[in-house]
């Protein structure tokens, strides 16, 4: 059964991208274990506001684990110690009475800190803009059932497409690599006949953009996969490598 717990929260506070940050420690009493982690931060912020202090800035939106807006590196794990959830789905029942919880922003050169726990993940959008699409315009499309797709491929594509673009993969990676994110999109589209047409072009363009943006090189540690809230598999990275190498060999 859920009960109320007393906790200490160590939160990274940083006024701006160029300012020096530091940890601030706050005590919170009687937090219900039934509340979500972000609701705990709401309670903290209410407390800070009532004390006339500036609340902690953090990103969040849908609070049901799908928009990918929430981040937070909690006790050494992106999205906290629970598996296969985002921070907004993490509940306080995963923490013990008296525990000290350390909350940090994503730390990766590709994701500069904006303020406190907010980081700029626009680099991921830029990678998609470089090639993470099928080049079709609106309209003039043949019937949806005109090209049958094996269920297995459709399912594998869906597994990859489940990526929410939260950035946990690069945040978890000791190399600051974005390969899991890139591979998820490349895989999804390479597995479907609609995306196959420009698969080679896509893989090259997205990798080039990823490298240009300063993400690191994948060394297959699998931390990304372990911390991914949507459990996207590194077999997608193998597929991306295949797609990229064969695309380059064909040139």
């Amino acid at each position, binding site marked *: 059964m859920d009960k109320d717990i007393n906790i200490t929260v160590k939160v990274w506070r940083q006024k701006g991208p160029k300012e020096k940050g530091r940890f601030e420690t706050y005590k919170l009493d009687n937090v219900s274990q039934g509340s979500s982690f972000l609701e705990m931060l709401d309670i903290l912020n209410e407390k800070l506001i009532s004390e006339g202090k500036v609340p902690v800035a953090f990103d969040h939106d849908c609070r049901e684990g799908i928009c990918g807006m929430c981040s937070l590196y909690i006790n050494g794990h992106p999205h906290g110690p629970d598996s296969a959830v985002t921070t907004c789905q993490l509940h306080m029942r995963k923490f013990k009475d008296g525990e000290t919880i350390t909350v940090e922003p994503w730390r990766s050169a590709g994701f500069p800190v904006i303020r406190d726990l907010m980081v700029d993940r626009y680099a991921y959008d830029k990678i998609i803009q470089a090639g993470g699409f099928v080049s079709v315009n609106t309209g003039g499309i043949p019937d949806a059932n005109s090209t049958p797709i094996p269920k297995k491929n459709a399912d594998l594509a869906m597994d990859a497409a489940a990526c929410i673009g939260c950035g946990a993969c690069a945040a978890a990676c000791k190399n600051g690599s974005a390969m899991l994110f890139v591979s998820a999109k490349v895989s999804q589209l390479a597995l479907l006949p609609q995306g196959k047409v420009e698969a080679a072009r896509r893989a090259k363009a997205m990798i080039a953009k990823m490298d240009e943006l300063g993400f690191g090189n994948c060394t297959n540690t699998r931390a990304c996969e372990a911390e991914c809230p949507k459990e996207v598999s590194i077999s997608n990275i*193998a597929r991306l490598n295949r797609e990229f190498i064969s695309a380059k060999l064909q040139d």
Partner: protein
Amino acid sequence: MWLLNSSIGKKLIMSISGLFLILFLLFHLTMNVAAVFSEEAYNVICSFLGSNWYAVAGTGVLAAGFLIHIGYSILLTLENRKARGNDRYAVNARPKNVEWASQNMFVLGLIVVCFIVLHFSQFWYHMMFAELIGHHEVELGGQAIGTTDGAAFIKYYFSNIVVVILYLVWYVALWFHLTHGFWSALQTIGWNNTIWLNRWKIIANIFATVIALGFAFVTIFFYLKSLC
């Protein structure tokens, strides 16, 4: 050139050079095991790998493989540290399924290289290198020994318990390095999927164990032999 410019290209170079070194390890192990059964046979191989042009050429290729592998490991590690950003996490936790070796490949590699230096100073420097600069005999523990008498070198060094322990440490580091390196190389080439991931990992573990135990067996064998 995409091999040199792109992240996957650079990784591919690491992967191919790593696989090449793995093949070499296999060959070296076979050679060592031969010494257990017949010291003469071992010495035949040693003389074959002396200062002959093909052996020198082979050594050159091997050295190139090492240098590329090491050079790129330094390059990639530096790049990756930069990609990580200037601020480090205050708390770090290793998630389940993430092997310790995978996150410490550079350190493991560094240990392996240090021992290679030791190993070279003990063997290669007195054997192929000595031959190349015109010697046919070198002094070892007060005795003159032929540069192709590999078995004598083995017996000499592996009778020393300190050397044996150092070598065993080396094999352990090598084992860790191989358990990750082997399947990681195949993943980088793209020969992997959800099913083969686990298969490759098991094969990698078996392979690394065979290599490490094989070398350890030869080392311990000669140490025990020296006690008799």
